[in-house]
């Protein structure tokens, strides 16, 4: 008798699927990857339950944690990856550091909208970097690749520099990695479905990405 398929938690609407990585990138950066899931919700006003979660998180995260953040394994792994791809993690902070900086400056995690709040909670709990796209504007599977020569990017007048690392679907780039996103792929209050993508780099275990996606998906339904 074959083993029964593991039951998905109620918040999983679609099991997380790995994205593709172009061979030239996979060869250079072993451990680089994407893990994606689709949530049947868009953005919009944050419910009170989500705001309460943010308040609790604000109480748990203070200056001491912010100072020691870069010594924790996952935030350190993202910082190292930033160095490897030519970014300065102090000038362009990693997602978890950006959120903690905002927390320190604002005195608390400020509620913005349902999606942003969900990403803040998931990122701060796990350290993993999460990106969100309007699932209905994405064509095919999501992946990581280098930009082609003179490839255009929505929102830019000039083409992308050759060899820029981008998050792309099977037709076009959707985001410059850890940078600007294509406007048409952004999640808005009118979006029906959200594609959440967690970015994996060397040193970040897959379980952290799964947990981050699960937390974000759960928070979007709070």
């Amino acid at each position: 008798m074959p083993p029964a398929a593991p039951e998905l938690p109620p918040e999983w609407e679609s099991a997380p699927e790995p994205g593709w990585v172009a061979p030239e990138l996979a060869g250079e950066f072993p451990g680089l990857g994407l893990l994606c899931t689709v949530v049947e919700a868009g953005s919009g006003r944050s419910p009170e339950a989500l705001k309460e979660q943010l308040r609790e998180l604000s109480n748990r995260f203070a200056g001491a944690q912010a100072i020691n953040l870069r010594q924790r394994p996952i935030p350190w792994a993202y910082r190292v990856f930033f160095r490897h791809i030519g970014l300065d993690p102090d000038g362009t902070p990693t997602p978890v550091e950006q959120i903690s900086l905002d927390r320190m400056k604002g005195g608390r995690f400020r509620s913005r909208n349902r999606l942003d709040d969900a990403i803040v909670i998931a990122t701060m709990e796990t350290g993993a970097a999460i990106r969100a796209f309007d699932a209905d504007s994405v064509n095919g599977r999501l992946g990581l690749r280098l930009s082609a020569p003179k490839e255009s990017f929505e929102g830019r007048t000039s083409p992308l520099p050759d060899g820029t690392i981008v998050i792309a679907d099977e037709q076009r780039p959707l985001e410059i990695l850890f940078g600007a996103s294509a406007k048409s792929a952004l999640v808005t209050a009118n979006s029906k479905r959200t594609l959440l993508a967690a970015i994996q780099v060397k040193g970040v275990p897959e379980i952290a990405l799964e947990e981050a996606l699960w937390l974000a998906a759960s928070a979007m339904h709070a």
Partner: protein
Amino acid sequence: MAELLERPDLPEELDLPPEEELGNLPPAPPPGLDTVLYEHDDGLARRDLRRQIAAMEAELGELFASAFPRAGIEFQVAGLGGPRILSVDELEQVRDALAARLQDVKGELHDIGYVEEKHRALIERMSEDPASHKWIRVSNEQIGEPGCRHWHSRPRWGILGMIMGWWRVKVSSGCPLARGVAPPAKPPSFTSSDGQQAPAT
């Protein structure tokens, strides 16, 4: 070797080919010799540089945490414009910049640590002999500690203590208590729909 030196038939100088002939050497190995020995693989060098960068980033993170609450130390290392795959030269630049920054930070922390140690010693001397350290004040910041505490050598009972030589080191109790949001200057006035103010209760 001595026999060779005594042989008169050997020329004293080697007949080297003219320089233009040296310049005609092929830039690449001849066909058939392009074996693995001649292949140039940057991948290994890049991997090794990335490993070095990772180790330096970890060390810089430790220094960042240990430097708190000291302010004014520069930890930033400029990026090279990304995100993209960096070449060996570019990775070397990142590695060298990180190494230089580590040296700077260690040097600064060493200097700051030396001054802080001097201040700690001063506090001990003040405590032992306050009269010899009149009016000297050392703060927590000067010994690299967080908080607002300070040690102040001052006379007991003001001028009388000053005249009588009753000096002591007073340790402040810490930072002032946080204050809440200030109340509004005046209570809000309630205006009824016909424009008349509600009577104050």
